[in-house]
């Protein structure tokens, strides 16, 4: 019953279409992969910086939007262009296109409509359920729903048609029907009542009893939260009875308890990654092969979805083989994880057989069709014991607008609900959540999803509680922060470090916070000064995360890394190179990312849904040494550092242990029987030489040459899986048992080919870990001082400080950069960005930057933003996710600062200059 955050299409459903990568033969134009292999063998690059640094400062072809047919070896040279026409109306019946109004030089060669898809036998993958193209006669399911795909041979005709469609509409609508009703996307209730003492079992918790969903009112599809006789199943009744008891207690008037009830609303926003979605595809009718170039965060899913879509198609529309190639992406922030865009790129090619065709959103189209962040309506009640300043109970109801298609809505609801109490320990919690369908543009994954909304509501409420008690806001947080070993609201403790006290101490001691009273008193004439603080504990990982990685070293000591993680700016390529370098002594000069089909030697198979599989099923499946719970996951949920580098790091560790280490022993003349032969853990790299005390340092190149000469392990390929803990397996390598936090391994000896090693034993994390809301969290706190102009309401961020803990920072510069970027995005979310949900919103196709405001340099304290990344708790604390948490606390911190300055608590986002001016008047 848990919604899969990673909807999963198995290779087995692919109905006879081969899905393999045929590498490009070397041709006069470099192949796609050559563009995407960075920094590139023999290419000069500065000693510091990202592996993709040179490519990005020289304008190299890198992103999906950069490629045309002429850039692809073996393709016809001409590129055709596709225009995806979307409906700006979702309350009238769609009646077709007015193509007659297009002049001759803007006419499409092919027009694809809903009927054509039916005739071709196109299937819609479950995750994108709904009409891919709205059929005439129907009311579009949502604003921005595609209605037709127009295909053009020449750019000029396409370009003219694109402008005419934007200016004139050219879509016909008939009678008013009102918006289309559709069932909600998911509803859940999370209730926990702690036992009498910290040590005792919970009276009730999701991890003990399972997750529960309410019944629904048949006619409207609305959930029924209260316990009705016909509510769904006894499990729901049991949980809801406890939940209602918590609410009754909160409603009681008790002078010893401070009780507050508050509503908070958040807006719809766009991820606004700078490169609009784009793709290029060619269906070669000769060998019936579909080649496709995409830039997505979920490459494995995209390939599966495309294959499913075409799997039962009629002969002209069913390729023998699909060759999907993935590029670097110009920003993602979650918004390119599981989008339907690749399906339309594919359709463009299949309906334009023999011709390469490009589908690329312009910004209007990206606003109209791209995934949005969910708006939330939240009602929260909190009870605080006045004497101790401790939160006694918390209840909340969340309603999400999921827009037109389900996408990740159910998961966003769950993540938001289970994040609703932030960094705090609360013994009694009851949170309900429902994600509704609406005619808005589809909402899905976006950085910090769910928790950004619920923690903003929480942290502003906490600030209000502190004021009302009164108690210093940091002291209040200190008294209530969840401590190591205490249980989260799903009933499990975190399995990673919890460093709230340190974060709070840092915030308290910082001059922005410490000197807040003096600064306020010192405000210049016409200005108001305010200081705010807020914290967030952000989950990362999804409970079924995996990675694939290959590491090889050649006889010259040059290292190559291939990974399935996607580079969206997060520096994953650089993080991979650094993590591997720690084992192999040098930074790779060939790193490829977003690879999903170069791991065939592992021969992986999967079955079942990793989130829903039973223990018995998992145990049975695991007997097959090639079975894993999930093969490849999207690069999202801040798992990049933690998961994305794991397989490559473990592969590198094996290459060291069974390749470089024995070669080094040979060079040192140490026999296998010598006790020093087992000291591999004590050896370390320094500037490309291997050092073991008492022996002469060995250069990597010499060791690598020896390893090749002796036919040792010179390459390893691995798969890692995490369900809040790593799967662990043992393999026989070179006659020794080798255990790693991986579940599949293949090795290469000398210059041979990769051979899969059957695991001898494996331990997958238990399936009941699926009841965990999250076991991984990173923490971040922010304090900010603002200045408001009394007459105009203009807000300036004078100074800000964020403190973050994320375990080992693989590439500290990138962690810092992502923190600064998250801060900027948080400022935009708090003060600037907003999209109307329905009519006159982005779905009408008229939105662009300028009207939609994101933070510019001048909106930020460029020289007064201090970010502190706490060092890891111990030298071997693993990397934790961090990309998302940094954007959260700045949002409530700004609202709390606005209250401090103006005395007004805003209960919705964004808080614009006009709104501030309004309350000052």
């Amino acid at each position: 019953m848990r919604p899969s955050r990673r909807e999963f299409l198995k290779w087995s459903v692919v109905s006879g279409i081969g899905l393999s990568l045929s590498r490009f033969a070397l041709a006069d134009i470099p192949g796609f992969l050559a563009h995407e292999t960075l920094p590139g063998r023999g290419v000069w690059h500065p000693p510091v910086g990202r592996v993709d640094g040179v490519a990005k400062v020289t304008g190299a072809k890198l992103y999906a939007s950069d490629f045309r047919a002429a850039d692809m070896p073996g393709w016809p040279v001409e590129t055709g262009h596709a225009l995806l026409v979307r409906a700006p109306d979702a309350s009238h019946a769609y009646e077709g296109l007015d193509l007659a109004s297009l002049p001759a030089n803007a006419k499409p060669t092919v027009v694809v409509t809903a009927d054509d898809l039916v005739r071709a036998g196109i299937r819609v993958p479950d995750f994108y359920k709904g009409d891919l193209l709205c059929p005439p006669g129907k009311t579009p399911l949502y604003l921005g729903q595609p209605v037709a795909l127009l295909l053009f041979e020449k750019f000029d005709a396409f370009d003219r048609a694109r402008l005419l469609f934007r200016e004139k509409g050219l879509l016909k609508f008939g009678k008013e029907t009102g918006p289309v009703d559709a069932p909600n996307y998911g509803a859940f209730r999370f209730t926990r009542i702690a036992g009498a003492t910290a040590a005792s079992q919970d009276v009730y918790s999701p991890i003990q009893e399972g997750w529960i969903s309410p019944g629904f009112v048949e006619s409207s599809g609305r959930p029924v939260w209260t316990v009705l006789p016909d509510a769904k199943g006894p499990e729901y009744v049991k949980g809801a009875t406890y939940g209602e008891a918590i609410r009754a207690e909160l409603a009681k008037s008790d002078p010893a308890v401070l009780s507050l009830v508050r509503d908070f609303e958040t807006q719809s926003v766009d991820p606004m990654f700078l490169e609009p979605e784009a793709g290029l595809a060619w269906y070669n009718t000769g060998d019936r092969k579909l080649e496709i170039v995409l830039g997505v965060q979920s490459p494995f899913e995209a390939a599966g979805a495309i294959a499913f879509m075409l799997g039962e198609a009629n002969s002209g529309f069913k390729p023998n083989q699909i060759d999907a190639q993935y590029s670097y992406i110009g920003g993602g922030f979650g918004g390119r994880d599981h989008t339907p865009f690749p399906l339309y790129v594919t359709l463009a090619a299949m309906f334009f057989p023999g011709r390469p065709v490009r589908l690329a959103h312009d910004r209007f189209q990206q606003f109209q069709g791209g995934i949005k962040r969910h708006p939330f309506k939240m009602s929260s009640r909190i009870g605080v014991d006045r004497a101790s300043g401790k939160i006694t109970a918390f209840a909340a109801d969340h309603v999400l607008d999921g827009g037109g298609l389900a996408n990740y809505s159910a998961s966003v609801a769950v993540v938001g609900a289970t994040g609703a109490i932030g960094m705090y320990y609360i013994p009694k919690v009851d949170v309900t959540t429902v994600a509704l369908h609406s005619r808005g543009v589809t909402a899905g994954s976006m950085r910090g999803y769910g928790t950004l909304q619920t923690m903003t509501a929480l942290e502003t409420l906490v600030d209000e509680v502190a004021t009302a008690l009164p108690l210093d806001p940091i002291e209040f947080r200190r008294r209530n922060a969840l401590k190591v070993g205490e249980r989260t609201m799903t009933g499990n403790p975190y399995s990673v470090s919890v460093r709230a006290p340190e974060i709070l101490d840092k915030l308290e001691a910082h001059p922005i916070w410490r000197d807040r009273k003096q600064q306020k008193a010192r405000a210049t004439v016409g200005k108001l000064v305010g200081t705010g603080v807020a914290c967030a504990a952000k989950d990362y990982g999804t409970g079924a995360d995996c990675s694939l990685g290959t590491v090889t070293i050649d006889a010259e000591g040059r290292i190559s890394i291939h990974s399935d993680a996607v580079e969206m700016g997060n520096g994953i390529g650089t993080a991979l190179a650094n993590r591997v370098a720690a084992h192999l002594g040098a930074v790779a000069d060939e790193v490829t990312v977003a690879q999903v089909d170069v791991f065939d030697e592992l021969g992986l198979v999967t079955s079942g849904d990793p989130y829903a599989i039973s223990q018995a099923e998992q145990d049975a499946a695991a007997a097959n040494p090639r079975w894993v719970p999930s093969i490849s996951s999207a690069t999202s949920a801040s798992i990049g550092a933690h998961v994305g580098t794991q397989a490559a790091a473990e592969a590198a560790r094996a290459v060291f242990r069974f390749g470089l280490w024995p070669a080094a022993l040979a060079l040192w003349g140490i026999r296998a029987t010598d006790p020093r032969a087992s000291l591999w853990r004590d050896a370390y790299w320094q500037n490309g030489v291997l050092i073991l005390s008492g022996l002469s340092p060995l250069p990597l190149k010499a060791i690598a040459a020896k390893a090749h000469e002796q036919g040792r392990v010179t390459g390893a390929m691995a798969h890692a899986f995490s369900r809040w803990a790593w799967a662990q397996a043992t393999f026989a390598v070179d006659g020794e048992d080798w255990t790693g936090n991986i579940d599949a391994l293949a090795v290469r000896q000398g210059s041979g080919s990769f051979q899969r090693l059957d695991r001898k034993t494996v331990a997958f994390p238990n399936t009941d870990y699926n009841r965990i809301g999250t076991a991984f969290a990173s923490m971040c706190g922010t304090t900010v001082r603002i200045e408001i102009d009394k007459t105009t309401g203009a807000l300036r961020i004078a100074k800000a400080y964020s403190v973050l803990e994320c375990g080992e920072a693989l590439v500290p510069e990138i962690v810092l950069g992502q923190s600064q970027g998250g801060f900027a995005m948080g400022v935009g979310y708090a003060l600037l960005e907003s999209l109307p949900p329905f009519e006159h919103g982005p779905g009408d196709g008229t939105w662009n930057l300028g009207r939609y405001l994101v933070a510019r340099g001048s909106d930020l304290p460029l020289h007064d933003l201090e970010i502190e990344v706490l060092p890891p708790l111990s030298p071997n604390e693993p990397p934790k996710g961090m990309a998302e948490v940094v954007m959260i606390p700045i949002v409530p911190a700004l609202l709390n600062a606005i209250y401090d300055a103006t005395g007004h608590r805003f209960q919705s986002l964004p808080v614009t200059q006009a709104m501030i001016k309004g309350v000052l008047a």
Partner: protein
Amino acid sequence: MDVRDDLTMNDFLREVLGFTGTKFGCGAGQCLSCAIIVDAPDGTSTTMPTCIVAATEFNGKSVRTVEGHARDGVLTPLQNSFIEHFAFQCGYCTPGFLNEGQVLLERLAKAPIARADVERTIGEALDGHLCRCTGYVKYHQAVRDVILADPDRYLT
């Protein structure tokens, strides 16, 4: 070469010439990821967005794009500084920032400024450029460090 009157410079570069180093972000003159350098006959240079300007407007003009900064594989100090500072993440806005920063450096080389004005000058020069990933801080630091590393050239 004949081009359509209403073909934008951005499409001319990207679709006709295949020079995709110049990016397309909004098509509305708002993000400047599409900005290129225009060199005037008097030796001054400015940046100009390409997405809202017809290609024909550039007829006879001398322009520079991101592809043209490095010579024979040798990066400019600004390109190196961007890399060393980890100034960008996804890199999609980088060509615009690079062109803007380069024009600024060339301007300062001709008309040096006081040390006290450096931050403000950089801020003003780069402010039109949108970046969704980085929060801008490192871009500013990267440009500043090039200026401060060569005070004889850029500072009074």
